């Protein structure tokens, strides 16, 4: 797997954190106040609490259990129970390459020299869960499981498929500038309906 779309920026505005699962790997994806996105293993190194339950302040994410605060690199910079202590650099969350581009949040589970894919000038539309593996959805839309599969049509639709599990994936849709949101939504939902009917 290279770059995977983990969500749309509009769904993770500055100051928020959400859980994202990519191919069975649980992540906490958060956006700082200045709009910088990060993707970390969803586990605080202190007591294993999910960081996606935490809270964003400024350019930091804190764990909800004991308030341990992490900077964008994933290093713990403040432990409220010990305000005088400078936490050792060894305390850090596991972070993955993450970048926002053209309104989508791109994540790679391995180090990557390449840039996240372009959306060809398309705008992000919405994300839809599909009850089937990413491979099956890719076969259904007759696309490779590349970062972006072009479906075409009136709105020049393209989708990025995010593997979640053997029985679930997320489809992130992009459409040409000035698309009609309603007709794109109808197109996507009828596509999902056909897929799930076929799979059933």
């Amino acid at each position, binding site marked *: 797997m290279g770059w995977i779309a983990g969500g749309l920026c509009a769904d993770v505005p500055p100051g928020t954190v959400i859980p994202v699962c990519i191919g069975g790997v*649980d992540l906490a994806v958060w956006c700082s106040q200045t709009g910088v996105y990060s993707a970390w293993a*969803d*586990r605080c*190194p*202190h*007591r*294993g*609490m*999910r960081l996606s*339950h935490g809270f964003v302040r400024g350019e930091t994410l804190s*764990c*909800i*259990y*004991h*308030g341990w605060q992490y900077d964008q690199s994933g290093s713990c910079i403040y*432990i*409220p*129970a*010990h*305000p005088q*202590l400078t936490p050792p650099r*060894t*305390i850090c969350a596991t972070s993955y390459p993450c970048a926002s581009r053209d309104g989508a949040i791109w994540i790679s589970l391995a180090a990557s020299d390449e840039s996240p894919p372009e959306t060809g000038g398309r705008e992000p539309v919405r994300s839809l869960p599909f009850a089937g593996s990413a491979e099956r959805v890719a076969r259904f839309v007759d696309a490779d499981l590349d970062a972006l599969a072009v479906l075409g049509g009136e709105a020049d639709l393209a989708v990025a498929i995010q593997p979640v599990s053997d029985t679930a994936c997320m489809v992130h849709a992009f459409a040409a500038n000035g698309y009609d949101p309603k007709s794109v939504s109808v197109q996507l939902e009828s596509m999902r309906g056909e897929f799930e009917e076929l799979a059933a």
Partner: protein
Amino acid sequence: MSGSPENHWYCVAMLSGLAEARKTLLLGKEITVGSGADGAWAKSADGSLMPVIERFGHLWACPGEPKKDLFSIPEADGEGRRLVDVGSVRVRCSPLRAVENFLDVAHFPFVHTDILGTESNAEVDRYKVEVREETDEVWATKVKFHQPQAAMSATGGIITEYMYRVPEPTCAVLYKTCPPRPGEWDVITLFVQPLTEEWCEVWPWMALYDDDSTLSEMVSFQQLIFMQDRSILENQIPKKLPLDPGLEVPTQADLTSVAYRRWLKKTGYSYGAQLVAA
């Protein structure tokens, strides 16, 4: 103490809740609890009676052979205390994670915000932790923490002093400054019934000096606190409590947790524990 989980005592019911026999789980196996003319009883799936004790308002059962008597809490016998059966909360977590969370004060400002702690007073001073050899119990003493509303009977913020005691791997007793009676300790316990290694039923029980609050107010207060804890306990990874160092990073505020984990490991009690770092 024996490491075999079958030979320990476990809380399995409130005595006041045994009018009708019911099935439950203990260490992953079905048991039935009920009461008759001779008192409360617990039966394993094959119908055989298990050793039981009625104490602290609850029924205790041992699926194997008990190696010692169930612990006592002499402080709870004081005259004028109100004994409060809180009920139970089922939590999808390791029974040991539930006990460890109960031993922790550093989470108060973030999980029980503006009730048991505030973010502006989150510091945890050094306290004392020991394993008392004569009773084989973990004790933490001189634990002091600033609390905005330590109990139903508290009016305004106070420095609360705590003592924690772990007399059984799945039980913890908290002794805490008693707002209306300085010099006495309120007693709040956590009896954890291991349904499975990753699912437990938590039976809190209290022996308090509080003449003003209604029973329903006191129960609601504890239920609120445990609901807040549940949102944490069901979201820790891994679900089992890691006993080997390396997977999780403790600090000085976690000395009770460190002692508890070491004690479990030394004892060989591993039901609900993860022994090899994942």
